[in-house]
């Protein structure tokens, strides 16, 4: 009985997913994917993972969706769209995929008792840091290295995207994100929303220390505001050679690194914080990271430079 809503949600998710894969037109596919993303964030709430739910909604559904939609708009349709391989191959694939799914399902259906978990350990050490949100603690203390590397991965992704700039455009600005025809409503929104959005973003980051929310969620909201402004054509995407832009991109990683290395002197080693200052340090790092994430996400969506530098 209590499972009914979950079953319904799962059914919805799977249907949307099948539709996403099966539908012919790729724009529909992208929309399908966004729907899946939003439904998934509900699923995450049901899994008691509110932070993940926020992230999924913000990045999984939102940012990725935007990215894909933009790609759709810029791709010219091709006959190759509808061509699918030989039916025999399709049947084989279906069989193999379901075999793998069956394997996973089988394992899911026989959970270990008692459930394997690190929650007790995580709880035990949390006191030292004086932060309320265990996720944030894991991300910025226990597994800070993962988080740090993954920020670097973001920077690398940006470099990777920029690699695809034609040589003559290097240093220039990405293609404008403007919609076909400017719309009063959009412009209005782009003028009204950002202040609020920024406040909310900052709130998420600040709040993240103790309650659900944090770097990514906040950063993504900031990025969304920026993208909105760019789409409403109030601002052009910045030139990728700009020093200020570069500094903003690396601000987060640098602050994180500094905090990490500082650990050698002010605490016992790399990425360790003195209990007294743990919270302020972490919040500062998070703030810097969020800023960088906002910029990186924005630039990732904007894509490689498409105009020669002025």
């Amino acid at each position: 009985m209590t499972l009914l809503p979950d079953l319904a949600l799962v059914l919805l998710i799977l249907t949307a997913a099948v539709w996403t894969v099966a539908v012919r037109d790729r724009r529909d596919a992208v929309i399908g994917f966004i729907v899946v993303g939003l439904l998934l964030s509900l699923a995450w709430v049901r899994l008691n993972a509110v932070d993940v739910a926020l992230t999924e909604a913000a990045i999984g559904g939102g940012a990725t969706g935007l990215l894909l939609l933009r790609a759709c708009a810029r791709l010219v349709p091709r006959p190759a769209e509808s061509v699918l391989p030989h039916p025999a191959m399709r049947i084989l694939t279906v069989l193999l995929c379901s075999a793998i799914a069956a394997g996973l399902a089988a394992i899911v259906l026989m959970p270990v008792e008692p459930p394997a978990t690190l929650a007790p350990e995580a709880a035990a050490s949390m006191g030292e840091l004086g932060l309320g949100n265990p996720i944030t603690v894991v991300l910025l203390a226990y597994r800070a290295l993962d988080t740090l590397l993954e920020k670097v991965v973001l920077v690398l992704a940006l470099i990777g995207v920029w690699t695809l700039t034609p040589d003559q455009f290097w240093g220039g600005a990405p293609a404008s994100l403007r919609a076909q025809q400017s719309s009063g409503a959009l412009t209005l929104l782009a003028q009204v929303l950002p202040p609020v959005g920024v406040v909310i973003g900052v709130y998420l980051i600040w709040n993240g220390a103790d309650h659900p929310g944090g770097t990514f969620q906040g950063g993504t909201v900031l990025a969304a505001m920026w993208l909105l402004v760019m789409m409403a054509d109030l601002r052009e995407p910045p030139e990728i050679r700009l020093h200020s832009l570069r500094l903003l991109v690396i601000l987060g990683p640098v602050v994180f690194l500094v905090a990490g290395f500082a650990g050698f002197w002010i605490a016992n080693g790399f990425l360790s914080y003195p209990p007294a200052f743990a919270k302020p340090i972490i919040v500062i790092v998070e703030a810097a990271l969020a800023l960088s994430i906002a910029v990186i996400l924005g630039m990732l969506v904007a894509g490689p430079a498409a105009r020669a530098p002025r």
Partner: protein
Amino acid sequence: MMDSGLLLVATLAFPLAMVVACLHPAFYARILTWLPLAAVPGLLAALFERGDSIVIAPAPLRLTLALDEVGAMLLGGASLLWGAAGFYASISMCGRPGAGRFAIWWLLTMTGSLGVFIVADMTSFYLVFSLASLAAYGLVSFEGTARAQRAGFVYMALALLGEALILLGFVMLVTAAPGGNPLIRDAVAMLPGSPLESPAVLLLIFGFGLKMGLVPLHVWMPLAHPVAPVPASAVLSGVIVKAGVIGLIRFLPLEVPSPDWGMALVGLGLLTAFYGVLVGLTQPHAKTILAYSTVSQMGVVAAIIGGGMTAGAPHTAALAAFYALHHLLVKGALFLGVGIAGATGRRHRVSFVLIPMALLSLSLAGLPFTSGALAKLATKPLFGDGVSALLASLSAAGSTMLMLHFLGRLQLLANDDHEGIPQRPLMLVWAVVAGASFIVPWALFANVSGYALADAIKPDALWAASWPILLGATLTLITTRFISRMPTVPEGDIIVVLDKLAPLVMRIGSGIDRTDEVLRRWPVASIGLLSLAIAFGAVLQFGR
């Protein structure tokens, strides 16, 4: 001796140093003139370093050089021929395009082929052995003609096959012996009774037999030896093949009587001996005939080793080496002689060419008072007096026929200038080698074979040496017309059969290409990925 073994090191280091020096253009330009010198340390070592040994790198690396009697004999002869041929080359190759390249291949090959006689540990042996066989490729394919390229290809293919067989054989030896890189002696001592004995011996016989040109692995020889420039042919046919001989000598447990292996080797050897003669008789070109004669002679050597193995006779190694030395010098002289003959006009032909060449040729057949007679006399005991001894003598008759055929063909080579005579230095160096081929065996005969020199000129010995020659001569007289009408067997005889397979191989190749084409399509590859994951998981779960 204070400088114990330094000459041995120099034997290898000196030619290599010359190669390195070639990085300097000035030296590279003049390399050809220095070629003869490269062999000098080897010669000195053979004279003064007998019984010395030196460890270049201590255990577990244990790179060791050692010069025993067997090694000394062959090293001496080989260095002599390398030096002489090098001198010949420095004149005959002078000013030819690519001479520098030739010199470098020459030096590398020489390092390897001298090395096989003096290294005492397995790894170093494999190193120098493969250096010799692979660098020789440069000499074989030097001329760059289509014929040379085909020869080079076949040579390379078989050489690589040989390498693989020998490597596996070595590995089997080493697994029997402890330690990373044992001395050859120790490894071979461990072999008898080890579980891998039979496969190891088989692999080694095939690997080294291939280098010696034992039937049916001889196909590369009649292609490779003739196409090279004259001095190169001389060393290829004279020295390089001895790498196989020394291989058998060093790696087969000769001291332990092992009748079955021994008889097998004898059989293979005699088969090769006669086969070489028969095919050789149909060949038109002088150098090709010599190549086939080498095949046949190496057969005899194999038979000698086999004979020794059967009985586990004590001196097998030395005797086989003695015979090999005789063939080394004579064959070298013969190949150089072909070059001389090509440069000599009709007028001086008989005096300059035919008489010495005749003596050399028949020496191969064991003409009394020649090195051949000594070699055959010394090795006779190893055959006992059964059928194999008779066959051995008959093979001498065969050689006679083959060499007479060769002399006949030699006529056709001639300088169009009637008066033409080869350059004096060439004559000189040729004379040196020819002379050595007579003198050196006489000098060594007594202490290699238990006989006194006097035994070599006893009537029965003379008769034993002569009758095969007379037989061969008469047979030639009888069959000469018949032979001249025999169809020419293409060079490398059975390789032709393999040529037939080429298109098939090509088809397989393109088939594999197409398969790869399919495998690299996205859906196929990713389906492969899924199936692999499932299969692997299943194996992990249930495959125990």
